[in-house]
């Protein structure tokens, strides 16, 4: 049963890497960064064209570039990286061999071929249909084929992950339950299976339609099922990057979860309710009943929002408890002041947590409210929101994790450590700004996916308020700073792989070393004040809640001044 492989114990982290799993992680993470690079270059075109005073690209090029930017970033960069994370959370954290490495390489090949095929189709120019590719607008058949191949590859990767869990259990590399981070990764993988199957259900007939085999696909059915794929794929990210937050809290602070029960239950709520959120995209649609919209868009009474609010408390809370145990107990926030702010792995994750909650979370719930959705649907507020969740949340988290992985997984010393220290701040804060002004412009009604907000030369042109133009210029500015700091990330990571000093790989052995059984420990409730183990985090959470409540009701107030609609 044991195949010939070897296990390397990293001298810097104590993590154990199985050879095949290590190669697979490297390959997937590397191509993720390649797609981030391409998506980032495309972002220059998007940002400089939407800046009204610049309007760099021609309309047809702009729509093509925007289509490619969306797909390369939202799908290829993120999912390649997530596959690496799945292998890490199974094989590395459970110290076992990866199941069926050959099939895992097949998955990788399918994903790579699929991503290239779709990009070629887009850059041939006849597939500028945006990531959503709503029928009856049609792209080249290869546009869909590439996505389908990629999806099949990703699905296989999920099953390799599940298989690896079985291997670990059977070969008894650990005892008891899987670690919390692995538990979160399982959540992500389960959501991924649902997502990819939905994608297949709708993209295969659409592909056949583009080939002329199927006569038509109903536009509303397409939208409904496509979003079970399109939105859910972002939910994979949420589960994945929250797992990474727990991982980084453990790495940077030695933090343990405040309560395994709360954190794991929150992940379970994701499995049960997070998927319903694809209804967010259909709130302004005809044909779907109010009851359907309300139940689904609220994730069945906001149980998935509850889960996110719990993670948002327990992760900084775990950090606070760990810091207080180290003696940083002065006042409410000494633990935070004395955090390792010059470690980009920590700073990136912390900036991500705050931005994801305040910008992405609050705006997401607002726009996912059935009635409030009418005042933002398809405005540039929507990309403002999802750049806060996907870029500030997922991308920044993955960047932070990369800084950890360069010495540990890639065995290289990081080049330009000073630049790496600054990069999360520059990228994170420029993205905060970018998202805020985008949401500002969206609040004024500016459309997303639009080449010319001035409607130049049109007899019925609508004159946007001056503030909208100002905001869009600021979007351009913030976007460019973010792109430059994204380039810094690419320079540091790729540069480290090419020129970084090689580091000691650590002892290799033909057999895994099982994870020793941890001794039961008392729960850390003796720190803090008034029986509150993490009072500082609780205060931060209350600040969050106040911001949330105010912003939520301001929007209702505005809605109430509009035309009567029923």
């Amino acid at each position, binding site marked *: 049963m044991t195949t010939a492989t070897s296990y390397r114990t990293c001298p810097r982290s104590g993590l154990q890497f199985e050879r095949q799993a290590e190669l697979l992680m490297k390959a997937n993470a590397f191509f993720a960064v390649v797609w981030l690079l391409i998506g980032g270059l495309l972002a220059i075109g998007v940002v400089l064209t939407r800046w009204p005073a610049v309007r760099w690209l021609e309309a047809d090029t702009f729509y093509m570039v925007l289509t490619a930017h969306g797909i390369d970033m939202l799908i290829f960069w993120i999912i390649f990286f997530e596959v690496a994370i799945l292998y890490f959370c199974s094989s590395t954290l459970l110290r076992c061999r990866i199941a069926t490495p050959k099939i895992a390489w097949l998955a990788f090949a399918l994903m790579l071929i699929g991503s290239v095929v779709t990009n070629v189709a887009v850059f041939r120019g006849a597939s500028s249909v945006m990531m959503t590719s709503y029928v009856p607008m049609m792209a080249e058949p290869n546009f869909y084929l590439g996505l389908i191949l990629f999806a099949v590859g990703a699905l296989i990767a999920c099953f390799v992950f599940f298989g690896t869990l079985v291997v670990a259990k059977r070969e008894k590399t650990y005892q*008891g339950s899987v670690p919390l981070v692995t538990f979160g990764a399982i959540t992500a993988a389960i959501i991924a299976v649902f997502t990819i199957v939905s994608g297949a259900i709708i993209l295969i007939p659409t592909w056949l339609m583009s080939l002329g085999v199927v006569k038509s696909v109903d536009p509303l059915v397409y939208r409904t099922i496509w979003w079970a794929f399109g939105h859910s794929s972002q939910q994979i990210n949420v589960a994945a990057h929250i797992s990474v937050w727990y991982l980084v809290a453990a790495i940077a602070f030695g933090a343990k979860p405040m309560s395994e029960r709360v954190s794991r239950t929150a992940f379970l709520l994701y499995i049960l309710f997070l998927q319903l959120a694809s209804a967010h995209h259909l709130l302004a*649609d005809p044909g779907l009943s109010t009851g359907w919209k309300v139940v689904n868009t609220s994730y069945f009474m906001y149980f998935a929002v509850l889960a996110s609010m719990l993670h948002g408390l327990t992760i900084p809370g775990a950090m606070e408890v760990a810091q207080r145990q180290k003696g940083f107990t002065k006042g409410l926030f000494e633990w935070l002041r004395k955090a390792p702010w010059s470690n980009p792995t920590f700073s990136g994750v912390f900036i991500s947590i705050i931005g994801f909650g305040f910008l992405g979370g609050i705006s997401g719930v607002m726009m996912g409210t059935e009635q409030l959705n009418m005042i933002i649907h398809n405005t540039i507020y929507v990309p403002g929101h999802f750049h806060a969740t996907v870029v500030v949340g997922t991308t920044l988290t993955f960047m932070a994790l990369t800084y950890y992985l360069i010495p540990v997984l890639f065995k290289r010393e990081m080049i330009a450590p000073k630049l790496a220290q600054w990069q999360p701040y520059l990228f994170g804060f420029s993205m905060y700004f970018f998202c805020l002004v985008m949401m500002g412009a969206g609040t004024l009604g500016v459309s997303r996916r639009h080449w010319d907000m001035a409607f130049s030369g049109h007899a019925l042109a609508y004159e946007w308020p001056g503030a909208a133009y100002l905001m869009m210029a600021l979007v351009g500015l913030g976007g460019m700073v973010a792109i430059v700091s994204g380039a810094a990330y690419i320079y540091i990571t790729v540069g480290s792989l090419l020129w970084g000093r090689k580091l000691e790989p650590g002892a290799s052995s033909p057999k895994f070393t099982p994870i020793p059984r941890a001794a039961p420990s008392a729960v850390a409730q003796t720190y803090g004040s008034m029986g509150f183990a993490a009072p500082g985090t609780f205060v931060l959470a209350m600040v969050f809640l106040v911001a949330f409540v105010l912003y939520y009701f301001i929007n209702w107030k505005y809605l109430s001044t509009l035309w009567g609609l029923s």
Partner: protein
Amino acid sequence: MSAILPPAERLWYKHPIDRVEGTWIVIALTWCLIMFAMMVGWHIWGSQNLSTETYRTTPDKFMAKTQAMVDKYTVRTETDEKIPVVAPPAGSDVYMLARLWSFYPILELEKGKTYKLHLTAMDYNHGFSLQPANINIQMVPGFEHVVTVTPNQSGTYSVVCNEYCGIGHHKMVGRIYIK
């Protein structure tokens, strides 16, 4: 480093919950239920709720109904393309269609009066984005969406297409006048 290690206690679902988390769960759950109640309550007490009255339609059928309204109630035409401006009586059924790349026709409605506005897209998906009010509704081909509207302010409103619909998307803008 226990988030990346198996928990020491065998049954994770029996771990104690500390006071910070317990308090936060109660607060967060309460807020979640309030938000849910808002959405339901607005359907009872609020006056901005998107109708879900929908019929299947075809471009021909919808065009015939729209043209009948245009023929009956056109008051003038505007722009070089002679887009009809239609002023149907208060309370009536009014039609607006979206196609590559224009809205048809221009409507002229009265403030404070209620109309049944029928919307559809003739070809691709389009967006009905009423500015500067910023009311946004999706227009899906094959579906006739009947929205009851009561304009509450007079003025010139623009209808911007905010669903990407091809190379002429950014040229697609229409108008509604409220008297």
